């Protein structure tokens, strides 16, 4: 099971902020379980992925308690 967190416009698009996904051994299998519109958006320009609070690029294995966060373009200050 992996916990998925959505931020910013991704959250508004999906209509949820946090959700658990079962049977996801890696990022690719998690992506396959996402709603198609959300899957498209998280693959969009400028969206970064963090697994257990570290940015990952491309392939990433997920553990039974992994936290996956999809981070659209950021702006502080």
């Amino acid at each position: 099971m992996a916990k998925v967190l959505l931020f910013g416009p991704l959250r508004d698009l999906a209509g949820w902020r946090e959700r658990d996904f079962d049977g996801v051994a890696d990022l690719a299998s998690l992506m396959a379980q996402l709603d198609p519109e959300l899957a498209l958006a998280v693959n969009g320009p400028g969206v970064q992925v963090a697994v257990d609070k570290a940015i990952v690029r491309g392939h990433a294995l997920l553990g039974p308690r992994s936290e996956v966060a999809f981070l659209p373009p950021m702006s502080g200050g």
Partner: protein
Amino acid sequence: MIRLQTEDLDIGALLNQFCLGRTDIGGVVSFTGLARHEDGQVTGLELEAYPGFTEIWIEELVLTAGQRFSLLDALIVHRTGLIAPSQAIVFVACAARHRRQAFEGADFLMDHLKSQAPFWKKQHGPGGTHWIEPRSIDYQDLDRWKVSPGGANK
């Protein structure tokens, strides 16, 4: 020191505390980012962080700035949650022996906060809400700090 908070920032108290009793500092540069009203087009900003991730990201940014500009001290306090016009969104302060280092440190921190820091900002107005992304000028500002392969600044 870095801090995220949902309460209104007391920027005067932060500046006083930052400078208090320091006899080694020559210059302190602070930046305060305020929520604008935009002639009534903005009723508030909603800022979201990724708790446990955003703080560490900012800590690393402050460490980088501290080394690069020989800062004696640095402070970032950032609001999250709902922010009304005229309230502070962020307060940054940099202390250095001489003023140029303090100016460059604060400038560097702000450019990175604006277009890189893990925050998401939603603007509320009479016409509804929309998410704010960095402007192209923000990315240009950021490019000023890129170090060329030879090691010298652009």
